[in-house]
């Protein structure tokens, strides 16, 4: 390349001053991007916003599955909200849901991490066998998991045989605890896989340096492993919370929300109102509460992830 050509390129290149005119530290908006976003927005509107808006509207009506207001139904304002405020079953159900979710998160994270940590140290063949068994439990359909746990925890089941209390009906004696354990059992495999991957990504140098510095195992876990695992744990907590919130099948198979209302979590209470009591509108309103709870988890996740 000749000197003339180089000078010509320099002349036609954007001036340094021009480059400064375009701010790269501020969010820019390009109208053309709207066209590119349209298909995604269309899908979002059809599959989420419109059904969600309709569900919110239904929650404020008197629509029933059968009965006089199944055909001639209409907007009733805050009537269902007022009812919900004084509906003791709803508040009991909300509390039950909270216990079920919190218990599931605690169990899944602790057991999932424990298994992942142990399998890191295990021999390869053992890792394959134990890992495989746990993952099978995770992949099992809710119906199968529910029936397995039902058979194991009622009188004459595996729990009774193992504990020597043959005719004890664990499921009916402690229903919420048992369905929470069943949920933990079915989700631990997922947690173990994710935690295992995250553990393998922790730099060995950091652990080795801590060992050299005489850090105890607890200090290594608290000061190195836990901070590095934080994004993974948050993701697992959120997903377990959302999956547990929507876990209708497992409890329906095991207890149908009973005995009494002992395991009647919000999805089951919503179903009961909509399809057993025919109150579609009130069932929709309870469903909307579940969406709000799920949204809170979602927002928390996004904020914590962004901060991380």
């Amino acid at each position: 390349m000749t000197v003339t050509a180089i000078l010509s390129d320099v002349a036609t290149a954007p001036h340094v001053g021009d480059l400064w005119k375009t701010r790269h530290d501020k969010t820019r908006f390009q109208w053309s991007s709207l066209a590119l976003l349209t298909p995604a927005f269309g899908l979002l509107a059809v599959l989420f916003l419109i059904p969600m808006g309709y569900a919110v509207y239904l929650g404020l009506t008197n629509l029933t599955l059968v009965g006089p207001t199944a055909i001639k139904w209409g907007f009733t304002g805050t009537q269902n909200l007022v009812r919900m405020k004084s509906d003791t079953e709803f508040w009991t159900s909300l509390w039950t849901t909270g216990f079920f979710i919190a218990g599931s998160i605690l169990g899944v994270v602790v057991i999932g991490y424990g298994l992942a940590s142990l399998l890191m140290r295990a021999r390869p063949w053992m890792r394959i066998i134990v890992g495989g068994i746990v993952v099978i439990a995770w992949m099992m359909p809710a119906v199968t998991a529910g029936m397995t746990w039902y058979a194991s925890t009622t009188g004459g089941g595996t729990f009774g045989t193992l504990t020597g209390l043959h005719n004890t009906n664990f499921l009916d004696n402690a229903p919420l605890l048992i369905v929470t354990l069943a949920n933990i059992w079915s989700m631990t495999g997922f947690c173990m896989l994710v935690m295992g991957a995250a553990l393998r990504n922790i730099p060995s140098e950091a652990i080795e340096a801590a060992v050299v510095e005489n850090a105890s195992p607890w200090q290594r876990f608290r000061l190195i492993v836990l901070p590095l695992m934080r994004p993974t744990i948050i993701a697992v907590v959120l997903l377990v919370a959302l999956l547990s919130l929507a876990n209708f099948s497992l409890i329906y198979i095991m207890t149908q929300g009973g005995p009494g209302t002992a395991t009647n979590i919000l999805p089951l209470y919503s179903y009961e109102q909509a399809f057993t009591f025919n109150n579609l509108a009130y069932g929709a309103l309870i469903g909307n509460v579940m969406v709000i709870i799920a949204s809170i988890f979602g927002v928390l996740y996004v904020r914590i992830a962004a901060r991380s």
Partner: protein
Amino acid sequence: MKIMKKASLHKFIAGAAVMAMAGTAITLGGGAMTAGASSKVTISVAYAANTTFDTTPLGTTWWGQVKKEFEAQYPNVTVKLVAVQGGEPDFLTKLALLYHTASTAPTLAQFPSTEIALYASTDYLMPMNKYLATTSWFKEYPKVIQNEGLIKGNIYAVSSGENNVGLYYDKAILTKAGIKLPWQPKTWQDIITAAQAIKKAEPKVIPLWLNAGTAAGPNGAGYGILNMLAGSSTPTIQTSSGKMVVSSPGILQALNFYHTVFADGLGAPTSQLFSPNNAPNIPSTDFFKGTLGIAVSANFIGGNWTKQVSFPYWAQASTAMGVAGLPTASGKGYASTLSGWDYGISSGASAAQATAAENFMNVAQESTNLIDAGNWAGWVPPVQSDWTVPLYTNFAAPFNEEFGKLLPYSTELPSSSNYNVWVQGMEQVSGTIAQTPSTTGAQAMAQLKQYVTNQLGPSEVTTLK
């Protein structure tokens, strides 16, 4: 020739007039005329594929048989069978959704009697008084069954079979317990005394099966506590003004009976009572295994032991088992709930379709078909004369005949959305007593009142003194 011409002219005018009148009639008649003998009519018939008959294949066979017979008799009508899959709650949801849209509403549907008032209040059903007045079989229904679909003077649905409840007992176990056979308790105390004797003589046997809890869905109470309520001093569930009774001497009597049974350790374990796996049918397997003494159970248990149903097949059941009426609390007569499966014609059906649906019912209600349905679905046929026909009595002897005799003592269950809530509350408190036998009848009734009032509001419930 003139005369001939005149006659021909008259014939032509008369013929033209007839043709014109017929044309006008066809034009004005619209849909009705298209139902003429030569026009094709299609009707849809919806039924529960997996819940009404004792086994799904028996249901498929019966519906296929009736359709075949009907289409042979009425070649201009095509029947489209809509077999709705799933359990009873799934069926009811699907049927409600089918009715919701005019194009999918079944011309004829078979559904539980507890849904009649709900569908009628939604204007889904057509009154069938005129049609029923012309049939020979409806006249043979006992009054209680005739009135099953009667709402404000109109009959919206007609029974195809009924379930009632009585006492089954294992003769060998009762003999070991020192109870004289045939056993017919006169009061509720007699039942408790017999159960206590069984517990003493055969400690490993469940003395008395009383359905409790919510596992069996809304029907569970109908096979359990509502029978005690039906035999109590105040059996009212819903008042004439539509209010649900949440506190009454009768409810207290029934709940106190439950309390006595479970507090004395006479009832079945909750692992069986709360089983989501078909709890009302468990007595048939427990009796077969010799682990149950007495059961308050529905008529279909006897049919369960037949070869066709095999739940399980037990050839000796006819001699090993006995049946007795469930006495009332006062000892006067027997008590039982009554619930059936009924046919209803869609209010959206055209005149031609309604006629075809009525004709379809006539075929379905022919004696052989009605008894086959009774035998295969575990129903007492609604036609009284069928209760002594060998085709019915021999199918599950002596149970079928005995439950036919008990049917006139039965009372219908209400049909309303509020009843669905009330019955859920009743099942919950019966389950509470079974699980925590220290719960007294009064405590359980207070729970019932709290639950139903919370769900329906104070204006929808009432207390009877």
